[in-house]
């Protein structure tokens, strides 16, 4: 059974009762990432979907306040009606997770879920201006606000973003939105291997053309995008967005510069939008399997080295977003967690998150990157400061938090 509070007061009551009764709760939204994370102590699901609706939306101020359980679809539709958007492009996990249900806005921020624009435009946490949440003591807490610049006190907003419901139950979020670009165009460089692609993407990012997406799709996955419509060979794709006149000029400039790396072609607006949506949603690995799937964040220049090193020892398939710094990696059999994490360290650091795996594998593999002792200890203390009785999904993000 899932607890579905319909007001903040209701939510606070449920949490207070649970805290005093020693009961554990698992905050969730639409459960489209069901099964993700480390296994926790048995906990009763508590969904925000009873708290739904747009509270305040001022298009001229580019700020929206929404109850946490509001379906993402509803938020996106309201924004689209005003030609605005969430710049961080939250991904839809249903494909890779094999889940159903409706993603909620609270779930997006609780998971700090961002898409291809993240590496230049910021993550979900960077757009999040204010929150209301119920802490583990059942107290309603307000943090941040509805203005873009705010350094009044500690930034609990950032802390709650990406805490996957382990620090508090989000009831309301206020975030910044941006105008939708007038047009989108993608410049494709064909036939580059992973290392060449990394160099090409770095070169593109050094140009004053404002690339807003940089992904490399190796041969093994390329055919899965836009119905096989990408040109021959591996595809390194660079996205430009903005005013039509400006995009045209920048695309010429970018295509000229990229011609030094390989054959260049272009994809126009509609197909570009479809392509980046599929990159965002990790389309090639929305494959109906539970094969271990990693989301790896490293420095852009080392993503391909990591894949090359692992390939010698394990069966893997991978593609790259964020200029090569976000590696989506599907393992053929074993998740090879230790090997992967050892190589990440050797290449300068980063983190690997196990998005899915067969149940038995998942139970024995830490989903989140284990932290160095001192950082883990701090995280435990932070958890205790917000959830002293440890009632919110204990263990979901690691050892004691």
């Amino acid at each position, binding site marked *: 059974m899932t607890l579905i509070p319909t007001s903040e007061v209701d939510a606070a009551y449920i949490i207070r009762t649970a805290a005093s009764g020693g009961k554990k709760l698992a905050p969730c939204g639409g459960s489209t990432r069901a099964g993700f994370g480390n296994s926790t102590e048995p906990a009763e699901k508590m969904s925000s979907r009873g708290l739904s609706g747009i509270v305040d939306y*001022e298009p*001229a*101020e580019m700020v929206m306040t929404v109850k946490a359980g509001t379906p993402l679809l509803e938020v996106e539709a309201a924004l689209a009606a005003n030609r605005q958007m969430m710049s961080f492009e939250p991904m839809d996990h249903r494909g890779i997770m094999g889940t159903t249900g409706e993603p909620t806005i609270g779930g997006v921020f609780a998971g*700090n879920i961002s898409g291809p624009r*993240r*590496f230049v435009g910021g*993550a979900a*946490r*960077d757009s999040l201006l204010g929150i209301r949440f119920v*802490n583990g003591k059942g*107290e*309603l*807490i307000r*943090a941040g*606000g509805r*203005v873009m*610049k*705010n*350094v*009044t*006190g*500690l*930034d*609990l*907003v*950032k*802390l709650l973003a*990406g805490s996957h419901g382990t620090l508090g139950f989000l009831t309301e979020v206020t975030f910044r939105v941006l*105008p*939708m670009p007038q047009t989108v165009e993608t410049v494709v460089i064909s036939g580059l291997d992973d290392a060449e692609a*990394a160099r090409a993407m*770095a070169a593109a990012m*050094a*140009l*004053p053309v404002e690339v807003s997406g940089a992904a490399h799709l190796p041969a093994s996955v390329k055919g899965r995008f836009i119905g096989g419509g990408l040109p021959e060979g591996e595809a390194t794709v660079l996205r430009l967005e903005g005013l039509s*006149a*400006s995009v045209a*000029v*920048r695309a010429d400039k970018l295509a000229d510069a990229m011609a030094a790396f390989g054959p260049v072609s272009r994809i126009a607006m509609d197909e570009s939008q479809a392509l980046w949506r599929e990159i965002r949603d990790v389309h090639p690995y929305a494959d109906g399997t539970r094969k271990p799937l990693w989301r790896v964040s490293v*420095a*852009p*220049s080392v993503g391909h080295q990591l894949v090359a090193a692992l390939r010698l020892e394990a069966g893997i398939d991978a593609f790259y977003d964020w200029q090569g*710094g*976000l590696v989506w990696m599907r393992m053929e059999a074993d998740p090879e967690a230790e090997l992967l994490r050892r190589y990440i360290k050797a290449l*300068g*650091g*980063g983190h690997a998150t196990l998005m899915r795996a067969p149940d038995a594998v998942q139970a024995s593999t830490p989903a989140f990157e284990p*932290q*160095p002792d*001192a*950082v883990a200890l*701090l*995280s435990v*203390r*932070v*958890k*205790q*400061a*917000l959830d002293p009785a440890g009632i919110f999904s204990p263990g979901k*993000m690691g050892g004691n938090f």
Partner: protein
Amino acid sequence: MSETIQFLPPRQAVLSRRTAIIADLADLLPPDCLVHEPRELVPFETDAFVAYRRVPLAVVLPRTTAEVAAVMKYCHRYGVPVVPRGAGTSLSGGAIPQEDAVVLGLSKMSRILEVDYANRTATVQAGVTNLSISETVGADGFFYAPDPSSQLACTIGGNIGMNSGGAHCLKYGVTTNNLLGVKMVLVDGTVIELGGKHLDAAGYDLLGLVCGSEGQLGIVTEATVRLIAKPEGARPVLFGFDTSEEAGSCVADVIGSGIIPVAIEFMDKPAIEICEAFAHAGYPLDVGALLIVEVEGSEAEMDAMLKEIVEIAGRHGVKTVRESQSAMEAALIWKGRKSAFGATGRIADYICMDGTVPLGKLSYVLKKTSEITDSFGLRVANVFHAGDGNMHPLILFNANDPEDAAKAEAAGNEILKLCVDAGGCLTGEHGVGIEKRDLMRHQYSEADLAQQMAVRAAFDEGWILNPSKVFPLEGRPTT
């Protein structure tokens, strides 16, 4: 002058051990890294919030993370308060010490450690000045985006402490949006690293929590920041209006139109006059309010955007439109704006407020602000980041007149409450420090503050890091 803002009473146990503490610190550090002669301590007794000053017990100027760790370990063991300090440019008193505190200055840690263009990052020591990063990478076509007006002097460590912004953060965000990682010394001397050249946190976003924490959670000694490719061109344009209200509503309409300029800066008549007299930037003197709108990109792009902005300004009765015709003119326009605080300081003492309000409330808050200062018989000059609603009323007063000073402080408090009541916040980029500490209850409930303080205590149970700042002195958890 009168002192309405209190500090924590000095810890007698620390004061009585002063000689021993100095001797112990001398053992931990090279001779030129410890300052304790009373005369030499004077430069550290305040920051840019000059109305308040306290002579610290000692000042340490470590050169390495290991030395910072040794000092922290010692101070933690003996319960000696530590006040971190970058360049001492805080406008909210964030770096003002107290009698029982060791000031930990990062000025000797001022090296740029690595520039990595393939990953568009720079790794620097915390005492590096903000501007020196952009200067170092500028010739290669990159820059570091946050640009506080004090960028020539202020340090990255201080920027992280206050989550500093600047004129250009309308497009590029503030420090927290441009910070990828830190090396940091915890209160007990443990050294940790958060983030790096990769994006996002592996677990809790402790980096996001540390940024803007005003030196209460630890001492950042190194930072990895994001570099951005410089735009092809940038063009600031001056828009003069008869009234502040017209300028304010023009800002809201520009933002609402879907164009995001890199910067929209606002100046009212007193600010225009002060800045023009100082910088000779060519600001029109026959207008009541001025906007500096900067767009960037290719020539074609800038033309297209400016055309639209000029049209919008026309609908709000714009009187003068002046585009900069050369790089030199553009630089002058910014020089005038960025020297606003310094130029004001030449004609009067001032305190600078930093509240942020929703864009739709700009005109209303401007009007109310001058009503408030009028009622105290004080002058105000407004110069601020209008695009993100971050106001900076400069309240002019005479610091030699205690009554005048008390009035200025009271007027400032009224203005900040006004910002909060209009749906905004006490501080957009300067931090709470001591200045706004006692107004925190106006913005937050007891539960909100208690939650923040509990998180603070998770890092510093004994409250020795910058202890007189941010949170009201009454109602703190007892330790």
